[in-house]
């Protein structure tokens, strides 16, 4: 997975569709990241933070019980063991460090499930930055504990009451803030989306997942797995792990929620700064996604995923909310790991396809992108306990 072209495109997807007022900030960020990413001092500082603060490298674990149950060899990349409980911290630490390098004092973020918001609030506390997190009102209700976590970390959480009151609207509101405050504020986008350089930058900051897993797979199984599977909303954890296996024979699978399957059920569109597959109506109005998982409740997908799909390098099936709930319980009971509802999408696809489209005995690497503590209350309510 290489760099996008000059216009920020991966094939025909990506670009920089933002108001004129944001163009200088995007150019500044592109310049800052390009320099930082090739600067050994920046990389050294970033790697130190990942190691000492975020608890990297994350382990690769052979899930023996689940493997026995499913008839395929399941390896779990344990991103849920990172500080703050998900892969989001990888991206946020890089962007917070960059914010400091650019001399900005304030950081804003959108969040769906709250994982990216918590990670951003955490990094803001560590770096001494003012932090405002935009979160749809539907999500502040279903993830109220994460709202408190962010506040505990010193961030302000703004409930967004417009539109579908979920992740898409949180992004809208963050963009509205950013266009008003861009000279002092960095917008820390949480996924591989937005105007160039974000999709590329966030993938590069997440590729540590795939780079580590590649080495760990070599040590554990002496090669590469047959499948690399990750959930996809915007698609940052998937982009991160795919980046380590793009040049191998591994089949890359991004698992979408059925009610937010932009790839397959959407059409090319432009929103939130990029061109990608997008759920929209016959006139081009953006449709609302529907997912049990707040983190995947998004009508679009990162542009590089649309590209990987269009060139046939990755596939993007979807699973239902019911399958996700089953998978949530399956991993809890077989391995003693409660996954985030987002990550349970990846488990759900493997559970469904094992011994059918995934041949018995295949090796399947799953990115366990987040832990499920935040979802326990919601799942309890759904299961009627």
């Amino acid at each position: 997975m290489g760099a996008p072209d000059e216009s920020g495109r991966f094939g025909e997807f990506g670009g920089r569709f933002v108001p004129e007022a944001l163009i200088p900030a995007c150019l500044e960020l592109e310049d800052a990241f390009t320099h930082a990413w090739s600067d050994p001092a920046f990389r050294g500082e970033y790697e130190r933070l990942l190691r000492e603060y975020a608890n990297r490298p994350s382990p690769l674990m052979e899930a023996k019980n689940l493997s026995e149950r499913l008839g395929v060899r399941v390896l779990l990349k344990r991103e849920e063991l990172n500080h703050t409980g998900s892969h989001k911290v990888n991206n946020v630490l890089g962007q917070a460090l960059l914010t400091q390098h650019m001399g900005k004092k304030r950081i804003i973020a959108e969040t769906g499930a709250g994982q990216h918001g918590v990670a951003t609030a955490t990094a803001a506390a560590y770096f001494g930055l003012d932090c405002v997190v935009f979160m749809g009102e539907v999500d502040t209700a279903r993830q109220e504990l994460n709202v408190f976590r962010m506040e505990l970390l010193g961030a302000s959480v703004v409930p967004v009451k417009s539109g579908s009151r979920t992740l898409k609207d949180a992004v809208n509101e963050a963009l509205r803030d950013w266009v008003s405050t861009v000279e002092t504020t960095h917008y820390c986008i949480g996924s591989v989306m937005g105007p160039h350089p974000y999709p590329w930058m966030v993938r590069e900051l997440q590729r540590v997942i795939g780079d580590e897993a590649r080495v760990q797979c070599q040590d554990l199984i002496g090669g590469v797995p047959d499948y690399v599977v990750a959930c996809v909303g915007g698609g940052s954890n998937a982009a991160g792990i795919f980046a380590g296996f793009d040049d191998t024979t591994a089949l890359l699978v991004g698992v979408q929620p059925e009610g937010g399957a932009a790839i397959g059920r959407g059409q090319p569109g432009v929103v939130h700064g990029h061109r990608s597959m997008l759920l929209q109506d016959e006139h081009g109005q953006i449709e609302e996604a529907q997912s049990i998982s707040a983190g995947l409740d998004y009508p679009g997908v990162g542009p590089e995923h649309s590209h990987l799909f269009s060139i046939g390098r990755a596939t993007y099936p979807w699973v239902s909310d019911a399958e996700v709930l089953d998978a949530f319980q399956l991993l809890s009971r077989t391995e003693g790991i409660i996954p985030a509802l987002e990550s349970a999408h990846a488990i759900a696809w493997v559970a469904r396809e094992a011994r059918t489209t995934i041949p018995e005995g295949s090796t399947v690497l799953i990115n366990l992108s987040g832990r499920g503590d935040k979802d326990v209350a919601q799942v309890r309510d759904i299961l009627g306990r």
Partner: protein
Amino acid sequence: MTVESALRAAREGGRKLLVPYVTGGLSDDWCEVLRALGAAGADAVEIGIPFSDPVMDGPTIQEASARALARGATPVSIFQDLDGVDAGVPLVAMTYYNLVHHAGEARFAGALAGAGISGAIIPDLPLEESAGWERAAADAGVEATLLVAPVTPDERLPQICERSRGFIYAVSRMGITGERSDVSSSAGVLAKRVKAVTDRPVLVGFGISTPDQAVEASREADGVIVASALMRILLDGGGPEDAAAFVARLRAALDAP
């Protein structure tokens, strides 16, 4: 008559330009509002084609867009509503790029022209992404207006002014649309910078809410665009005559010696 020729003619007549904005499909009588504004002294009228995710808009235009969409407004229905409507001044569409992209640039531009709309403003389509749209619009005889912002660098400003058609839309402040209590000092600075590199009409928009603000904002610029303050009147139940009365007050203030 093109937008640019109409605005140039009015400017040469010695007056400051006034372009009010109306969200298309907001009410049954929204086309009556267009006629009333034309008669009340507007030099052109901007028609917002509502989009589900208007990221450049503040609460008022968001509310107007949501209301129009809830009433079933679509680009097609708005174009149909305009059939046979003569506002007496040029019409300029304002919308977001996904509606253009979804329809196809050439088809969308053709539909605008077919509905009697002379120009278009797409605020989320910056210079680097707009070449295709500019061509499609030109082919259909639609003037594609580009925007400049207070942070637009000096070397970029002439490029935008060179490619913009109809007029130059100068965004008065860093931020989104909406009523404000004062005119940002950045408005005058930007208008002066733009005027220095182009002869095209320069209109200031974003946050111009009152007659006094219109006068102040058009001191350096050729005129103003007024959206949220007018939409607030319509959202609160005002009709074409109320909208016209407000625009007439703006006109009178701009015309006062």
